[in-house]
């Protein structure tokens, strides 16, 4: 009798066990969902931050490009040269030594030179 009661008791507890299991599973899924949601939110925030950072860097690049263009401008060069007392002139032809990759001349001209290219 007692034994049968025990069996009956187990059978009576079975739905509760299932209920707890489903609850735990649901809670687990909810936790996973929350975790994923938070991760996505976090990544979203990071992306937003990086987007703002990229925009800021782009601005800086543009500013630096402008500064570089100004620094290389003729007006600035002339101002700097005047400030440092530098006067420049073009070199005379006899002072120029041209170092160039050998390029073939026109065939007739090459032959005229006795096989020596003007660019040799």
């Amino acid at each position, binding site marked *: 009798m007692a034994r049968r009661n025990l069996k009956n008791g187990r059978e009576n507890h079975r739905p509760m066990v299932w209920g707890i299991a489903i609850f735990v599973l649901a809670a687990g899924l909810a936790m996973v969902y929350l975790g994923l949601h938070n991760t*996505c939110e976090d990544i979203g925030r990071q992306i937003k931050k990086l987007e703002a950072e990229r925009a800021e860097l782009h601005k800086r690049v543009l500013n630096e490009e402008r500064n570089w*263009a100004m620094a290389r401008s003729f007006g600035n060069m002339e101002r700097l040269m005047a400030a440092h007392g530098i006067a420049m002139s073009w070199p005379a032809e006899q002072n120029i030594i041209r170092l160039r990759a050998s390029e073939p001349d026109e065939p007739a001209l090459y032959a005229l030179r006795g096989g020596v290219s003007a660019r040799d």
Partner: protein
Amino acid sequence: MIDRGYIWRTTFVAVVLLSVWAGLAARLGFLHLGKNESLKNRVRNMRTVEEKILVGRGRILDRNGQLLALDLPVRTVCVDPLVVLSNGQAQAVSAQLARVLQLPPEQVYGRVNRPGRRYEPVARLVREEVAAEVARLRLPGVFFEPLTTRYYPHASAACHALGFSNKEGVGSAGIEQRWDSLLKGRPGLRQSERDGRRHEIYTRRTLEIEPQEGADIYLTLDLNIQHFVEKALDAAMTNFHPKAAWAIVEDVRTGAILAMASRPAYDLNEYNQTDADTRLNRAVGVNFEPGSVFKVGVVAAALNEGLISTNDLFDCENGMWFYAGRPLRDFHPYGTLDVTGILRKSSNIGAAKIAVMLGPERLYRYLKSYGLGAPTGIEVPGEETGILNPVARWAKVDITRIAMGHSIAVTALQMLNVLCCIGNDGFLMKTHLVRKVVDKDGVVLRENKPEALTRPITERTAALMRHMLAEVTREGGTGTRAAIAGYNVAGKTGTAEKIVDGRYVKNENVSSFMGMLPAERPEIGIIVVLDNPQPLRTGGVTAGPVFATIAEPVAHYLDIRPVDAAEMAYYDKILLGQP
């Protein structure tokens, strides 16, 4: 024993609370389940954000990658006068702002001292570095508004070719206008939601269309050569007092424009402070009667037809010749001149006799094949086509006038093309100002490569012409002041009388010089035009020296190799017809 009053009170409170909760639940259910489209839309509109993702215009660069135009982030420095005045710091804030922004203190104080106002812009288009300096002062009531503006680092350099884009970011002149569709790009679109603090929630983005940034345009212009040209033109404006001056430098072999400048010029960053006349790109936008530089095309045509040779002699009638009952005069009287002499001395009568030998139809055919009377197709707006009437509309005397560059109108670019055609062994190249268009990913969208349009004259004719034109800058020629040391320059002077109120005026001229170097195998062609120089008026003494001032540094800068003896012998053989 429980007090009955207590039971009633408790019951009453419970009923009230339950009623309130029931009411709220009912309202909640009604809001969620009922048809409350207007409310839903209101909430949706408050949360939804739809914004255009704006992109800057593409950059414009020269052939070496030097920046000529870019979109620059700047700020407007503003003040909240209410805050500043309530702190009693109007004087101090004004003084500090004026010092950093380099503005008159009274002007800044005038902005700050406006009781009751909440917004006053103190300085616009302030660079980021300067704005950062202002921000470091931590002045009360001072704030910034970010914006982007089109910026031209070199101010007036190549202003007529570059043009500008207006405040709305629309290209309104020059390259900026012609290439607006590629420069401006396409804005993107973003649909998303925002939180209670009005910050966008990234995970709620429902639509994101990436913007297409404006493409970069690389020009054929070289900023250094442009500088040489502009410096020379500025000096010409001072020395010869012309109403205007313009010049072009072209790569003879490719048709690429290396420099294009006009004077007067203007600062592109302050384009709205100039008039239309100053903004006119005269290099392509002004038709003028070219005068004697035009003889080059006429003589080349006759040579090419075999009607004349370089040594043929022409009677220049001692300076006065009647044709079709109308007199034609030379600037100086000459007796007999050979063809080289006609070019060297710039004899109108000699050139007219050659044109008469050629005949109107043939001359017209050659002029058309040089590209005259039609636009060159250069990539800037406002190009004039020149004026070349059909033969049917020519009066009998016109052929003699056209031979000396009257009764016809050209642009400087068209005239330079004729010379470069001679420099390029007879091939007329398509001129271009844009080298390539590159998008932000580095993909080349368009690229201009050298393109031969026609070949009006043969290689030998071209060589003979160069040989004769080299005499113009030698002793006895009209263009000796255009000569430069170390190079033979082939060129031609021009002095055309201007037409005022329908009549030619003696004391007002368009003076010009066009030349190329080295004469034997030209690499660059240059034209200089001065509109009414005073008191010196002829092309040889005004435009000639300007040409030399440009050509000398350009030849050094481009490292143009002078022709040596062996090479000279080779070209001499071509002239003798034995290449």
